[in-house]
């Protein structure tokens, strides 16, 4: 104990009570934000590698519902972080105008790292919310910018955690001087309550029981053609005529150039399989549905490509980032990887990918290619 009655080891925490910042508040919020950004980063990386798998990575098809969980968590955690981040910045804002602004080289470096940290954190949450609201007030491509900013922000977060870990530990262990603990608790409880309100207000698109309360959900469960929401319509993808063309043929191409062309009637004549699989969107909503169609592996067998390791699924769409997607390894061979003809016992709606669409376990929704024109085995 020191002469002032404050344990010596909390000197770090004591050092800045004078600058108007209640260190325990900053520490608790920092801890919560560290966890939230950690969860968002991990689930975001998962989403990224599923959509852009590096050559050494084969996305696992199982568990089938994993992506709806990780992506639902990504969006919900990011949403929950909004009040926490604003509360944290509010608590530490007296330091923004501290004088002198830079007291030493190290202090200067630490403050410099706050710019990418604060700018990056605010940008990540803002751009995430905007993307779910389909608001794009910028020229860059959201996923690429969000992904790049995430690395920069997490790097700055690591610098910040390094600089503050000791003080955070000290502040969480011992009550520091400052406002009464009751006010501290109620402030933190208020921030947590606001997080809860935002999560409930947005999560209804993937947790149906919350839907009546989810005044800001991007989707309503059961709303859409055949009771399932739609991300891109046939009209928006400019495939209406091609999809309705009676001359439509699904073309399957083997690695040696073998080809098979199947009409809709040919496809219906093949063995049909059923699977209940979710559509899980990067924007956080997801919905399970019952699909019926032809196994991709059965179609590949017709061109001698039963053992194919990579299959490119191409849409009737002429352009667009998601006009084609890859199936790899176990995804190709999974018994539930289907070219679906039916949804909920009826032929697919045009907006769900008529005449046939890909539906496979564990994939982000944008990779469940609709209006499939060709399967190309490599």
């Amino acid at each position, binding site marked *: 104990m020191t002469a002032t009655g404050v344990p010596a080891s909390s000197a770090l925490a004591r050092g800045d009570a004078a600058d108007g910042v209640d260190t325990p508040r900053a520490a608790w919020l920092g801890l919560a934000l560290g966890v939230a950004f950690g969860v968002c980063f991990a689930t975001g990386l998962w989403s990224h590698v599923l959509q852009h798998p590096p050559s050494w990575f084969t996305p696992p098809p199982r568990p089938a519902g994993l992506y709806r969980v990780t992506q639902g968590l990504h969006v919900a955690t990011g949403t929950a972080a909004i009040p926490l981040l*604003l509360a944290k910045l509010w608590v530490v804002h007296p330091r923004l105008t501290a004088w002198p602004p830079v007291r030493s080289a190290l202090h200067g470096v630490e403050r410099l790292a706050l710019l990418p940290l604060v700018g990056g954190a605010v940008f990540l949450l803002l751009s995430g919310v905007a993307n779910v609201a389909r608001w794009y007030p910028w020229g860059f491509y959201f996923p690429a910018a969000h992904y790049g900013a995430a690395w920069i922000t997490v790097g700055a977060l690591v610098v910040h955690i390094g600089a503050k870990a000791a003080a955070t530990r000290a502040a969480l262990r011992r009550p520091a001087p400052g406002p009464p603990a*009751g006010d501290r608790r109620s402030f933190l409880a208020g921030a947590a309550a606001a997080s809860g309100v935002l999560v409930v207000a947005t999560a209804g698109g993937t947790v149906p029981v919350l839907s009546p309360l989810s005044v800001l959900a991007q989707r309503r469960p059961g709303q859409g053609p055949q009771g399932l929401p739609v991300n891109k319509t046939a009209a928006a993808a400019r495939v209406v005529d091609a999809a309705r063309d009676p001359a439509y043929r699904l073309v399957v191409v083997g690695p040696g150039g073998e080809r098979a062309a199947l009409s809709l009637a040919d496809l219906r004549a093949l063995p049909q399989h059923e699977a209940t699989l979710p559509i899980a969107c990067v924007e956080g909503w997801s919905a399970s549905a019952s699909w019926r169609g032809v196994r991709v592996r059965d179609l590949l067998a017709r061109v001698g490509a039963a053992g194919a390791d990579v299959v490119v699924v191409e849409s009737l769409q002429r352009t667009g980032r998601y006009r084609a997607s890859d199936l790899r390894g176990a995804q190709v061979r999974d018994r539930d990887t289907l070219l679906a003809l039916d949804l909920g016992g009826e032929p697919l709606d045009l907006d769900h990918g008529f005449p046939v669409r890909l539906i496979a376990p564990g994939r982000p929704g944008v990779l469940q290619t609709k209006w499939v024109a060709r399967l190309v085995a490599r």
Partner: protein
Amino acid sequence: MNGTTSPRGLAVGLALGVPVMLFGVRGVLLDARDTHPAELARWLVGAAVVHDLVLLPVVGALGWGLRRRTPDPAWPVVRAGAVAVGALALVAWPYAAGYGASAGNPSLLPRDYVLGPALAAGVIAAVTAIAAAATVRGVEVDVVTDVVIDRPVGEVAAYAADPTNAPEWYDNIDSATWASDPPVQVGSRVAFVARFLGRRLAYAYEVVDLVPGERLVMRTAQGPFPMETTYTWRAEGEGRTRMTLRNRGRPAGFARVGAPMMAAAMRRANRRDLAKLRSIVEEAPC
């Protein structure tokens, strides 16, 4: 140095974090066609600047105005409500503005994003106002429970009035020790250790009224929840006793908000305790 920064920790953080940042910058530059590096940099810096120079002062001004109109005890509740409404409004803004609406896809953004958030904000504001009013007025918790015991008044009263018996029949009380000389009389003090709603509480009761075989009143003024506990005993037919247990108090501080829940928990606990008391007294050897 800032008082909370550890130089060694910062060095470790820089060693680990800077490569991660550089990896991000490299990725942005390599993918320049999609990331528009110059525009992205403007957004990253702009996000910090707009937060610090616009949002922060606006929140500060609104908070200051609200704080001035709010009585001290209600501030924690009002602040929490305001933060929730503010956060909701921030997220609701792009939805309400209709930036993302798509005419051809009615399953996308299917709700009324002005009415819904406005209703939610109204509900939060109403709950906040009710809780704030309760906080300012103070909410009295007053829970009365009773039980009929198949033993004479004298026997029941003698057992229940002895505070050292409390740990036997109160589920929540772990120990009771005399802080004055026994037996129980007006002015007696007893120290209790109890658990309530997951928290360990140590408090002292003082007996303020005692009519043997009729009633006992004791009171505590400590802790966030000053309480008064009253036992009464009345003959109910031949050899039977009706005992009532009344707990009355006015929670202080933030505990006020939880008063209704606390009363419900207390009622459940008291019923259970009286049932236990009955079984102990009825089975006591005569």
